[in-house]
C-alpha cells in the first residue's frame, strides 16, 4: 500500500515504530502535491519551510525517546480562513489577498503544540460562502473522484487535499454544512462539532452564531484524534464553552447495540435523489442488524431551516464583513475621493459576487422596516427547530439522514442559480441552526461518486456520533475506497 493511501492513525503507528521519519513523510506529502495539485487545485499557499522545520523537530524529539501525541509529525492542511502567524491568510478573497496575520488562531496554536506538520492553506469559497469552491477569487478546486466535478464547499480545498492524498487530514469550517457536504462529495469523514466545542478565535468570521471548526479525515478514528487535539475552552473566544473534553477515541469501539436511531421523514422528501435515499436507508438496516433500533420521526420545522439560515447567516455576515474598509489591513482601492469613497471602492472591488450578494441580502434583512419580518422571525423559527431536535433527543441517541441531496455536481452546473446551489445544503443547515454536532461519512457510491450519510447528535455528544460512525465504517467496506486520482475508485468494488 502507498503511504499517501494510509490514514493518519496508521501513519502515526509507522512513525512510532520508526518505519518512517516525519521528514520522509513530509517529503512524501510534497511529492504527492507535485503529482496531483495541478489536477485538483486544493491549495492557495504552501508552507514548506515551516513544515520541514516542524518535521525535523519531531524527528529529533523521537530520537530523544519522547512520547509524542497522535498527530505529531503528520502532514496536514488548514483551510485558508484560519489565521497563521506570519503566513498569508486570504480567505480566498481579493480583499485579504495580502493579509499576513500577526497571530495564530487557537486551532493553529493547538496543532502546532501537538507537533502537527502544516503543509499549506487550502482553497475555499470566498469567506466560506458557497457550496462548491467555485467562489474562490483564486482557483476552482476539483473533486479527486472526477475532476469535472466540484469537491463541495466551502471547505472544498481541505476535502480535496485529503481525498487526493496530499495530506493525511485537514481542518475545515462549517457554517451551514461546509465540512460535511465536501466530506460527502469526496468520500471522507467530516465532523461539525457542537457550537462552542472548538474555539473560533482566529477563524475569519462569516456567521458567528453558526460557524464551527472541525476535522476532515479518511476515517472516523482520524476525526476522533483531531477532535481530541482541537477541542476545549478558550478564554479568547467568548462563545467557547467551558466543559470537559472526553477522549473521543476511547469508547469508539463499543458498538451500537441498544441505541435508538431517529429517521426524520422530512430529510427523505422531494429533491433527494432516490439512490441516495436508498443507500441511507440501507445503512439504517445495517444498524438494525448490529442491534440498534430505527424509527421514523418527524421534524416538521426543519423544512424552514434553509430560509432561516439565509436570513441569519447573511445578516451576521453583513455585520462581520463591515470591518473590511481598507483602513487597517487588506486590499485598498487605488483611486478614491475621501474616506467614505475609499471604503466603498475598496469593498466593491475587493469582494466577489457571492459575498456581495450575501452582504446585500443580510443588510436588507436587518434594515429598518424588514428587521421584524426577516431577522427576528428567523430567530424565532430557529427556536422551533432547536426545540424539535431537543425533543427528538429525549428518545433517540442520534438522527440519521443523507448529508446531501445528490452526489457531487459538475463544475459550472449551478453557479448561475444561487437558490439551486443553496439547496445542496438542505440536509446540513438545520444542524448549524440548532447548534448540535453532526458527522458525515460515506455510505455508498452512485455512478462512481461517493454518497454521504449524516448522523446528528445531542449537544456535546460527539462521542456517540463517533462511536456510531465507527461501527458503520467497520461493518461496511466503503471507507477503504479511494478516489480515482489515488489509483482507486469504485470500479474496484
Amino acid at each position, binding site marked *: 500500500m502507498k503511504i499517501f493511501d494510509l490514514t493518519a492513525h496508521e501513519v502515526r503507528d509507522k512513525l512510532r515504530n520508526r518505519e518512517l521519519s516525519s521528514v520522509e513523510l513530509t517529503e512524501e506529502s510534497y511529492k504527492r502535491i507535485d503529482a496531483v495539485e495541478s489536477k485538483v487545485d486544493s491549495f492557495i499557499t504552501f508552507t514548506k519551510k515551516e513544515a520541514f522545520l516542524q518535521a525535523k523537530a519531531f524527528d529529533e524529539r523521537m530520537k530523544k525517546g519522547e512520547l509524542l501525541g497522535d498527530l505529531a509529525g503528520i502532514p496536514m492542511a488548514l483551510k485558508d480562513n484560519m489565521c497563521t502567524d506570519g503566513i498569508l491568510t486570504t480567505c480566498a478573497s481579493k480583499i485579504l489577498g*495580502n*493579509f*499576513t496575520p*500577526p*497571530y495564530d488562531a487557537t486551532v493553529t496554536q493547538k496543532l502546532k503544540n501537538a507537533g502537527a506538520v502544516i503543509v499549506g492553506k487550502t482553497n475555499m469559497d470566498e469567506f466560506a460562502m458557497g457550496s462548491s469552491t467555485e467562489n474562490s477569487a483564486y482557483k476552482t478546486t476539483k473533486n479527486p473522484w472526477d475532476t469535472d466535478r466540484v469537491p463541495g464547499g466551502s471547505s472544498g480545498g481541505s476535502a480535496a487535499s485529503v481525498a487526493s492524498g496530499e495530506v493525511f487530514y485537514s481542518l475545515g469550517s462549517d457554517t451551514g454544512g461546509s465540512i460535511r457536504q465536501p466530506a460527502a462529495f469526496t468520500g471522507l469523514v467530516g465532523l461539525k462539532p457542537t*457550537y*462552542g466545542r472548538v474555539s473560533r478565535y482566529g477563524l475569519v468570521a462569516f456567521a458567528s*452564531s453558526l460557524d464551527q471548526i472541525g476535522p476532515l479525515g479518511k476515517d472516523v478514528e482520524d476525526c476522533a484524534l483531531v477532535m481530541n487535539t482541537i477541542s476545549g475552552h478558550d*478564554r479568547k473566544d*467568548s*462563545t467557547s*464553552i467551558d466543559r470537559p473534553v472526553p477522549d473521543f477515541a476511547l469508547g469508539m469501539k463499543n458498538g451500537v447495540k441498544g441505541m435508538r436511531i431517529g429517521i426524520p421523514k422530512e430529510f427523505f422528501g422531494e429533491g433527494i435523489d432516490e439512490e441516495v435515499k436508498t443507500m441511507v436507508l440501507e445503512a439504517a438496516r445495517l444498524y438494525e442488524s448490529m442491534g440498534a433500533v430505527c424509527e421514523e420521526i418527524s421534524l416538521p*420545522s426543519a423544512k*424552514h431551516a*434553509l*430560509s432561516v439560515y*439565509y*436570513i441569519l447567516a447573511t445578516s451576521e455576515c*453583513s455585520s462581520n464583513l*463591515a470591518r473590511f474598509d*481598507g*483602513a*487597517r*489591513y*487588506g*486590499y*485598498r482601492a487605488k483611486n*478614491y475621493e*475621501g*474616506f*467614505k469613497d*475609499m*471604503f*466603498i*471602492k475598496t*469593498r*466593491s472591488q475587493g469582494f466577489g459576487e457571492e459575498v*456581495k*450578494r450575501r*452582504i*446585500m*441580502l443580510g*443588510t*436588507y434583512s436587518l*434594515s429598518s422596516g424588514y428587521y421584524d419580518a*426577516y431577522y427576528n*422571525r*428567523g*430567530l*424565532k*423559527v*430557529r*427556536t*422551533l427547530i*432547536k426545540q424539535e431536535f431537543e425533543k427528538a433527543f429525549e428518545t433517540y441517541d442520534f438522527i440519521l439522514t443523507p448529508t446531501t441531496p445528490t452526489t457531487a455536481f459538475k463544475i459550472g452546473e449551478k453557479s448561475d442559480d*444561487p*437558490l439551486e446551489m*443553496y439547496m445542496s445544503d438542505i440536509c446540513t443547515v438545520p444542524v448549524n441552526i*440548532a*447548534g448540535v454536532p453532526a458527522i458525515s461519512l460515506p455510505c455508498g457510491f452512485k455512478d462512481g461518486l461517493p454518497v454521504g450519510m449524516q448522523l446528528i447528535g445531542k449537544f456535546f455528544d460527539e462521542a456517540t456520533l463517533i462511536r456510531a460512525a465507527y461501527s458503520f465504517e467497520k461493518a461496511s467496506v466503503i471507507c477503504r475506497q479511494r478516489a480515482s486520482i489515488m489509483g482507486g475508485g469504485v470500479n474496484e468494488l
Partner: protein
Amino acid sequence: MAITVKDVEHVARLAHLEFEEEEKLGFTEKLGAVIGYIEQLKEVDVDGVEPTNHALDIKNVFREDVSEPSMDREKILQNAPAKRSGCFEVPRMVD
C-alpha cells in the same frame, strides 16, 4: 416580493457597496428569488416564541481587570495599506 433597482441602490448605500447599472439589474432578479424563497417563513406561527440568538445559552464573559501585554505595534502595522508615524494612514475624515 419584487425587488426594484431603487431597493438595490438603497441597500447598497447601507452596505457601503456600489454596482454598475447592469449588476443592479442582476441583483434585483437574484435577490428577489432568494427573498421570495425565504418569505415562506411568514407561514410559520411564531406567536409567543422567543427568538434564539445563540444555540447555547451563553452568558457574557468577563475577565479580571488586569493589564496584559498588547500586540506588538509593528506587527499590527505590517498589514496596513498605508502607515505613517506608527499609525494607520487614511484620507481626511473631517473637514
